[in-house]
């Protein structure tokens, strides 16, 4: 597993001492502590850059530095096995500074995003991935990065397209929240990935539980939250510059990020350039699986006063990606032929960066203004306006020089306003808020092809409230939400003569959640959450109509769909034995009434291209249940063992027919060795990881063409280290994925009918932090 690095989150607490300041006799002192257990972190190093002072804390984490002049300083804090963290603040008099370092943050702990208030988050079932972990995987897609969280897998469509599966649910049931805004893109198909650059994010959070209620009806199965996060108040330019190279696909990824603080402004800029060519299985090239991405973002925070701040955020995502040439089929006999082959059709025996049709080109703009006003330290309100534009063009191999004309050309505009009020001070802490959104989706009709998804406009309104009531060792919480969705669409009839039909839909949905946390000791915590949420059908489920070529099936929407109702319960038990072990087990059950899925009809439709199976969006009660487990163990300060296990089942409630794309059972285990820090070289680690995926034995022969692929085992290796040059750090990473060069196919990859997965991949990463 990738995220083994101990990631540090440092919370800085400044307590101002009472001794008067004298010139260059200022003393700062304090202690380094584990944030979770409050245990001292011995021998933490603390360095003050400007004064060129370097001290090492004692065995109880205490340090002291004397002889400082009044002024502003960069302070570097470093603990064994963790990347160093850097802070900047002004010192006028003797000061106590405690560093709270948190271990294993990305796996077991939530992250407090609201900076000033320390705002409460529900005792939620959510996990985050930190900036360091994101940068350590530069080049990977958003969904692939989130895969390291237990219970999260990725549904893929070849090398370049992947989207997260949370507890067995994906697509329309997983909300993707991009910097506080619901990502408005064309993500309805499994062949569409979220249009987000993970390198612009500093925190990626996966929400699996009831607290997804904040994000609305789309979050029935959970939410993926991507955030730029707060900007460090430091008047100098700081940031990172990284480059990654991967042999499989000969991929180059260049990423950069910089922040700077002015008197009233904080600024962050990010940029990513990514270019991959054809990937390679152990035996052949996956022709036309290249990707090119060019992304950028700008975040500007204006601190109008002590209590009011305004923020402007803009991000651009552009991508062009090829669809594997060997998966290009147009009817059932093509599919059958392709399935039976050892080596796919249409592949080249050489590498190329070329991206030819079939291919996708996507441009996504996101512009957001938000304002925040603190009424009190722990009471604030926030208002947001967001504008998004998503342009998706999909090209096919066509006759008569039409390959340069997109076969699908969609332009989506989305406007959002949001309001939130958080009171973290009263006896019953609460959060209330609302969102209104207006979405306009339009086809370009010069494609010459009937659109799979029609023109539509959608208005939605949501209001929610969350309460939390601490009661001794218990914390009780509850939430409620109301959603209204109004939809008007202009589908084109499949009958002749073709005509535009106007349809309207209106949905009301109510969601409720209750939960509780019981912390018996600081080392054991039990969480229980129950949630009843509803999801109204999405435009593709209502109006999809036509031939889905890549799957050789005719898909039909259903105007009579009603909202789904999900009853989800999650029981989580966390245990930790200080200095030895942390363990988390999570059991869940999710009954979804009127679960919407594509059901094969008892009909083959005869067309001039042959006979096609017909799939219609149907509703049936379904039941998903599963189990996630994580163990992290520090045998010593040098050796760390980590294991993850997830098991999930999904079937219809009455007949027990398996649902499609339920992740097979997954087990991963890794062993990491942290070397002694040298004078210059620090944080050197070697990790070996094994991943075992079983064969999905629960599958429905009626909705699939082929039994799921066999179980497989992958072995990965990683080495990382860093070197300090002056006060800057350079990080190096080497990795080998699929070390044994195993030939395998993955049930969660739609292209498993056509080709094997990628073979061995060597990656090299270098990152300069300044």
């Amino acid at each position, binding site marked *: 597993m990738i995220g083994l690095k101990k990631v540090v989150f440092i919370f800085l607490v400044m307590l101002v001492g009472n001794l008067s300041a004298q010139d260059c006799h200022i003393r700062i002192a304090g202690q380094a502590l584990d944030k979770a257990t409050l245990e001292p972190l011995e021998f933490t190093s603390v360095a003050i850059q400007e004064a060129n002072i370097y001290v090492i804390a004692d065995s109880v984490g205490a340090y002291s530095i004397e002889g400082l002049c009044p002024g502003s300083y960069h302070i570097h804090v470093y603990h064994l096995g963790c990347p160093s963290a850097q802070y900047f603040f002004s010192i006028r008099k003797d000061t106590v500074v405690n560093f709270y370092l948190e271990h294993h943050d990305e796996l077991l702990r939530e992250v407090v995003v609201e900076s000033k208030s320390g705002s409460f988050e529900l005792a939620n079932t959510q996990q985050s991935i930190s900036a360091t972990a994101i940068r350590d995987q530069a080049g990977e897609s958003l969904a692939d990065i989130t895969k390291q969280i237990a219970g999260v897998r990725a549904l893929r469509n070849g090398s370049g397209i992947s989207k997260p599966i949370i507890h067995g649910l994906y697509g329309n049931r997983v909300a993707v929240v991009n910097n506080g805004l619901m990502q408005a893109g064309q993500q309805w198909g499994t062949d569409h990935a979220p249009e987000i650059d993970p390198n612009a994010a500093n925190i990626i959070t996966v929400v699996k539980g009831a607290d997804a209620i904040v994000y609305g009806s789309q979050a029935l199965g959970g939410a993926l939250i991507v955030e730029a996060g707060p900007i460090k108040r430091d008047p100098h330019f700081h940031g990172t510059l990284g480059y990654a190279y991967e042999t499989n696909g000969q991929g180059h990824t260049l990423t950069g990020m910089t922040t700077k603080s002015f008197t009233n402004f904080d600024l962050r800029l990010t940029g990513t350039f990514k270019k991959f060519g054809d990937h390679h299985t152990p035996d052949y090239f996956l022709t036309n699986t290249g990707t090119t991405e060019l992304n950028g973002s700008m975040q500007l925070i204006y601190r109008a006063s002590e209590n009011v701040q305004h923020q402007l955020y803009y991000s651009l995502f552009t991508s062009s990606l090829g669809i594997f040439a060997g998966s290009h089929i147009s009817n059932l006999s093509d599919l059958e032929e392709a399935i039976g082959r050892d080596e796919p059709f249409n592949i080249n025996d050489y590498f190329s960066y070329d991206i030819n049709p079939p291919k996708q080109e996507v441009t996504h703009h996101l512009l957001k203004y938000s304002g925040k006003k603190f009424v009190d330290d722990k009471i604030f309100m926030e208002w947001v306006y967001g504008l998004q534009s998503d342009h998706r063009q999909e090209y096919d191999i066509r006759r008569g020089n039409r390959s340069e004309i997109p076969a699908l050309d969609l332009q989506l505009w989305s406007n959002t306003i949001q309001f939130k009020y958080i009171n973290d001070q009263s006896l019953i802490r609460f959060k209330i808020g609302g969102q209104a*959104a207006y979405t306009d989706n339009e086809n370009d009709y010069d494609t010459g092809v009937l659109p799979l998804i029609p023109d539509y*406009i959608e208005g939605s309104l949501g209001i929610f409230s969350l309460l939390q009531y601490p009661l001794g060792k218990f914390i009780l919480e509850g939430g409620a939400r109301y959603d209204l969705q109004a939809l008007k669409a202009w589908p084109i009839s499949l009958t002749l003569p073709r005509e535009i039909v106007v349809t309207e839909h209106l949905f009301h949905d109510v969601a409720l959640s209750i939960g509780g946390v019981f912390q018996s000791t600081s080392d054991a915590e039990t969480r229980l959450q129950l949630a009843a949420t509803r999801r109204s059908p999405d435009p593709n489920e209502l109006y999809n109509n*036509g031939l889905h070529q890549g799957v050789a099936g005719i898909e039909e929407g259903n105007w009579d769909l009603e909202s789904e109702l999900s009853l989800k319960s999650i029981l989580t038990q966390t245990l930790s034995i200080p200095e030895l072990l942390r363990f988390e087990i999570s059991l869940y059950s999710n009954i979804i009434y009127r679960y919407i899925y594509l059901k094969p009809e008892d009909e083959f439709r*005869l*067309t001039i*291209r042959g006979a096609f199976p017909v799939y219609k969006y149907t509703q049936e009660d379904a039941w998903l249940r599963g189990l996630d487990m994580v163990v992290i163990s520090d045998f010593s300060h040098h050796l760390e063992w980590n294991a993850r296990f997830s098991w999930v089942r999904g079937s219809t409630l009455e007949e027990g027919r398996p649902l499609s794309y339920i992740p097979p059972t997954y087990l991963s285990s890794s062993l990491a060795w942290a070397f002694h820090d040298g004078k210059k070289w620090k944080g050197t680690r070697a990790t070996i990881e094994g991943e075992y995926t079983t064969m999905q034995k629960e599958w429905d022969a009626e909705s699939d063409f082929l039994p799921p692929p066999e179980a497989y085992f992958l072995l990965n290796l990683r080495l990382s280290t860093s070197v300090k040059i002056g006060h800057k750090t350079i990080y190096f990473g080497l990795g080998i994925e699929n070390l044994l060069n195993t030939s395998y196919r993955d049930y969660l990859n739609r292209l498993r009918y056509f080709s094997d997965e990628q073979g061995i991949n060597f990656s090299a990463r270098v990152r300069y932090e300044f």
Partner: protein
Amino acid sequence: MKSLNYILLAFAASIGLTSCEKDPQVPNEEELITTFIYTLTPQAGGDPVIFSFRDLDGSGGLEPVIVQGRLDTHSIYNGVVQLLNESVTPVIDITSEVAAEAREHQFFYTFPDSNTSYVYTDTDADNNPIGISTRVTTGDPSDGLMTVLLRHLPDKFAAGVKTGDITNAGGETDIEVSFIFEVE
């Protein structure tokens, strides 16, 4: 649902828009093939035999109209394929589009049994067959299915493809139609 319009209008108004109407068009599906006609003219003279498949609504639910004919035993026929898009006016002749991209297309024919055989009588610039025109030779009586496939971007140089064996052709099927085929 008048009220829905008001609701949408309210949303639109909340962000400064004043309309919630759209004016979509029906795309011009000029690439669509609706009609396949295979005309077999006896070399010895006589009325041509016609096999045709008409599916005007593409992937819509309308049943295609299929016309099939009967061939004589021990005869030679000259076969010609015609492809049309009859969903638009004027009707588009797709055969010429295929002929213009002859190297990227090939028709494949299968007959019920070995009593009936065919050869290609046209070639592309690489001297590979296209299959718009063919010569069909019948023998003893036979009865079964005839299937015609049009492949876009097949590998015409792959083994057997030149002689009409589809196994190694690859590519994407643009047409796949079957007819009841009788020789008596």
